[in-house]
Each structure stands twice: as C-alpha cells, then as structure tokens.
C-alpha cells in the first residue's frame, strides 16, 4: 500500500487554556479530494495553519510523502519551507496583493521556484532575463488554465469577487504544489460561480495530478465533490467517511443541528 500523501497524527493545538485542536488524526491519499467540515469555530482553519507552519502545533505529527519522494516531517517548519516542499494554500479571507496586477500576483507564487539572487538582479545576466521571461509566460499559462487570462493586466483589487477567489487558487498553483489546501473557496460565491469552482477543482485533480483538501460550508459542493470527508467539532474529530456515511452519521447531525430531544 502507498503511504498517504499527508498524514497527521494526534495533532493538538493549545492557545493558552483553549484547546483549538485536540488529538486530531487525518490521512489523505494521493489523488483524493478530501473535505474538512465542521461547525463554525470547530478548528478547521487552525488545522490548516498547523499544517502550513503558521502555527506550530503543541503536539502531534505532520508528515508528507510527496509523489516519488520519501516521507518527511513538516512540524516546526516555517510557512515558506512548507510551500517549497509542495503544499499550497488559499485563505478564507482573500489575501491577494492589492497593489499588483493579476499577472504579478501569480508571479509572486513562482517566487520560490526562481533562483536568481540579488547579485543577478543587479547585473542582469541573460540567464536572469530568461528566467524572468519564463516566469511571465508560466504565470500566464496558469491564468489561462484557471480561466482568468482575460484579466491578466488588471489590478487584482478590481476583479469580481469570484475571480479573486480563483486568482488565489491560480497563485497557489504557481508554487508547483502536489497538495492544495483550499480554505472555504466557495464562500460568498453565487450558485453560478460555485458551479464553475466545482468544475475547476475536479479539473485540477484530473489534469494537474493534485490532491486537494478543502474546508467548506457549502454542503452541496462538499457532498458532490469529495471522495472522503473528515468532520471536526470543538477541536475533536468526530467522524470520517464517504459523503453517504457522513450524511447518515448521527454524531455529525448532532454537531450541526444540536441534540434531538427524542434521542436523549
């Protein structure tokens, strides 16, 4: 059996006395679209932040096994090193670089795959110029794939909301990831945009060989898209399974809707 691409074991995150995550274990297989769901404040975004190095978990193991490479631990790595190892993410509240164009936003994503340093930037040898040109064309290709090519030279702030969310995905793709973490990609989108996002995520998995873990509140999207769903509540993992299992799981229904008085 192949090792899971991302394996999180007994992850605990304390903020002072508050246990935001309590002994959460999650494994994600290659090529999966996995979803992490749970009521507000359940610790979903904290989970992302622990994996990507924004927080250092209090306890637990975070390991990745990139395709064709050995297993390595991510614990305690700074966010930029996590990205370099191939995990890209988007943010719940859109965090684009506002003063920059759409193209430049994606070019920032290419940053960690470019090698030119300060001296090269000052002297500009041909190798540096070629690299810069390649960064521009690569970024444009990514925008074409995501369907944002028509906005290429616009300022990022001027984009419609749905397009800004897609741009975040484009920027994450530019870092050449094998695992993509999407934090509420459909938040605030209209049904049409959500449908397009659904298609995009499937396309990314099938054509870009990506594994995707997403946090989402739109249950229709989650149920139609995911191969596997993990449910957390109050920092504890309460269930995992296929969408059908989760729909039928009484713990999950309790977490979302509260205890039914007849059951008690």
């Amino acid at each position: 059996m192949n090792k899971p691409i991302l394996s999180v074991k007994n992850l605990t995150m304390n903020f002072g006395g508050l246990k935001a995550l309590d002994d959460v274990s999650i494994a994600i297989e290659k090529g999966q679209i996995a979803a992490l769901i749970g009521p507000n404040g359940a610790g979903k975004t904290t989970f992302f932040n622990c994996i990507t190095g924004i927080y250092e978990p209090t306890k637990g193991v975070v390991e990745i096994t990139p395709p064709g490479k050995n297993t390595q631990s991510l614990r305690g790595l700074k966010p930029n090193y996590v990205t370099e190892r191939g995990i890209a993410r988007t943010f719940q509240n859109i965090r684009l670089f506002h003063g920059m164009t759409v193209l430049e936003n994606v070019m920032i994503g290419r940053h960690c795959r470019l090698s030119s340093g300060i001296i090269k930037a000052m002297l500009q040898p041909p190798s540096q110029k070629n690299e810069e040109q390649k960064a521009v064309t690569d970024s444009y290709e990514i925008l074409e794939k995501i369907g944002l090519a028509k906005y290429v030279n616009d300022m990022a702030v001027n984009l419609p909301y749905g397009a800004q969310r897609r741009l975040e995905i484009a920027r994450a793709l530019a870092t050449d990831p094998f695992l993509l973490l999407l934090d509420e990609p459909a938040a605030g989108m209209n049904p049409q945009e959500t449908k397009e996002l659904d298609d995009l995520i499937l396309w990314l998995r099938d054509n870009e060989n990506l594994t995707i873990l997403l946090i989402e509140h739109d249950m229709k999207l989650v149920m139609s898209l995911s191969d596997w769903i993990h449910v957390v509540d109050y920092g504890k993992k309460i269930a995992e399974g296929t969408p059908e299992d989760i729909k039928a799981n009484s713990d999950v229904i309790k977490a979302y809707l509260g205890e039914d008085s007849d059951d008690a």
Partner: protein
Amino acid sequence: MAIKNQIKQSLIIAFWFMILTFPIMVIKVNTIQNTIDFRWANLLWVGIVTFFASMVWNYFLRRNEAQKKKEIDDDIPLIHRLLQNDRFRRPFLGVVAAFFLAYPFVFPMYHTSIMISALVYVMLGLGLNIVVGLAGLLDLGYVAFYAVGAYAYALLNLHFGLSFWVVLPMSALLGTLFGVMLGYPVLRLRGDYLAIVTLGFGEIIRIVLENWDTFSNGPRGIADIPPPTFFGHYFDQHDTMIYIYFIVTGLVLMTIFFVNRLENSKIGRAWIALRDDEIACQAMGIDKFKTKLTAFALGATWAAMGGVVFAAKTSYINPMSFTIWESITILCVVVIGGMGSAIGVIAGALVLILLPEYLRAVSEYRMLVFGALQVIVMVFKPDGLIKSVRKVYTFNVQEKAIHEQTHT
C-alpha cells in the same frame, strides 16, 4: 449653496483664530506705565487674513478632490509621462544631464557645495526608499549606517592611510554587514515597534561614537580627512569640490541604476508583496525574514557610501552630524518626495535640502516656512511630490510577447 457654506465655514475659522490669537496679538502689557494696550486693529487683520487663507485652502482641497474623481487612472505625474514619451525622453534627459554637467562650472563654489549635500541625500533617500518605500519597514535609525560609512573612511584613513577609492567599496560592504547585524535581531518586530527599536539603535551608534574616546576621538571628532584623489593627484580646494560633485553624481546614477533593477526583479516584487500582506507572502514561499533583511542591508549599503562622500567633502566629522534629526530628514525626503518613487525621492532631496539653504535670506522664518511647506505638501499631495509609478509586468496577449509597461 456651496459657496455660502464655505463662507460660513471660513467665517467660523476666522472667528476662532481671532479668539486664539487674542492674548498675543491684541493684548500688550506696557510694563513701564503699567497699562494694557488693546491693539484692535491686529484683531481685524488676523480675522481678514485667516478668512481669505481658509477660502484659498478650501478651494485647493476641493479642486484636488474633483481632480481625483475625474482621472483615477490618468494621474500619472507629468515627469513620468515625459519619460514614457519617446519623443520627449531623450531631449528631457539631455537637458537634465547638461544642467548637472554644467552646474559646478556655472555656479560658485558655495552652490556646488550645497548641491553635493543634496546629492548625498538623494543617495541616502534612494537607499532608505528600499527599506521604507518598497519593503514597508519604518527605519528611524538609518543615520547609523551613514555614520558607519563616514567613520569608516575617517578612521581607516587616520590609522592605515587608506584612500577614498579603497574605502568606498569597503564601506559598502561594511554598511551591508552592519545592516545585517542590526537587522537580524530587530526585524522580527514590525510597524511601530520596529520604528522604536531602530531609533534606539541609531542613537546607540551615535552615543558609542561620542563616548568611546580612544576609538572615535569622542565628541571632538576627526579632522583633516583628505579629499578624494585622482590617481594619486590632489586638486586645489575649488577643483576638489567640483571633483567630489562629479563623484557623487556618478554614485547617484549608479544608485538609480541598481535600485531600479532591484525593484523590477524577483526580490523587488517580493518586497512589495511583503508590504501588502506578510502571511500571504509566506504562504507563497517567500522567506519573510530573509527578504526583509536583504532590504535592510541593501539600504544600509548606500547609506554607508553616502557617509564616505560626506566625510570626504566636509573633511571633519563628529558625532553631532549623526543625530536622530538626520534620520528624520532622510525619512522626510522619502515621504515628501513620494514613497517608492525614485524620481520622487530625488525631487524630495533637492527640495528639502536646497530649500533651507536658499531660505537663509529669510533666516528668521526659515524653519517656519519649511514646516508649513511640508504640511502643505502632505495635505495636497499625500502620495508625495512625485508619486510612485511602478513598472508593472503585463502580458501582450495578441503577440504572445512580454511587454513592460508603466502603470499606476
């Protein structure tokens, strides 16, 4: 309606000023006769002047706002439009070059001397612009690196007899080294905290220089610093000034050249992105700390070179030249000139350094006028004299070719 409101507002302001200035402008105590004179005419003048000043002020504010609405995309400063236009660029740059070439021969030595100071500030401003304008790190101790450069030349010359041309590249390295040394512990902080800590570091360097007598000669400073030589040849005082003028002009050109290239590279993009959003930047694989440290160290490099030129020009330095006020002046150059804008910084340095010199004629009110001008610039041009116009990467879809265009 609007005009009626404006008159009403101006009347209120005038009235308020009359009350405020009443004790100093109207009441005059005659201590000899023990009487009080009431100078009512002054009250009237204060009222009239403030009324009209307020009307003018309002008019400009209104016009500014109307302009902003009208041309949101089209507010590229004139000078940038000149530089973009192929027909005007060459003649324009030609005129500027001719002016700076002829300057020391046309004007007397005093003017050359203050122009050298202004150009040193251009260098300092461009260096600080990397730190404050591009990377968004508020550094109030920038003068420390300026001092490092100046003292490096003075001391290396005093003890080892090293010449200007040897020390200049050495000081650049030394500046970078100090930038890394000071930056390493403080760059974990951000915003106001960083400002306070850098301010402290700036003062520490000055206080060390002032008190470590055996090392730096203390507050007495170091005198007889030799001017730069031309292949071992010394010029007389007048020609030396011209020589230094051209050296500093060359250094400024070099600074513009390199800073421009840095700005439009991978590292420049990372600086600007870091200023926008640190967390997103890190998630994109940019090493926050390293990128900040590079900005800090590169800024320090130019400050140190500026220090060497300063020491060579004045031939005497002491710690009093490197007080916190110097840091603030350089920061003013950047902010008033236009953050992130190289041309703005040049304009800022020339205005801020030359203006007080030429205002010596009205020396009593010099600082008052200077301060008022700064306030006026900030109110009417909050982006600085010449606002930053960044080279933006654009993609030409039709030709599938890459173009670099300027864009606000």
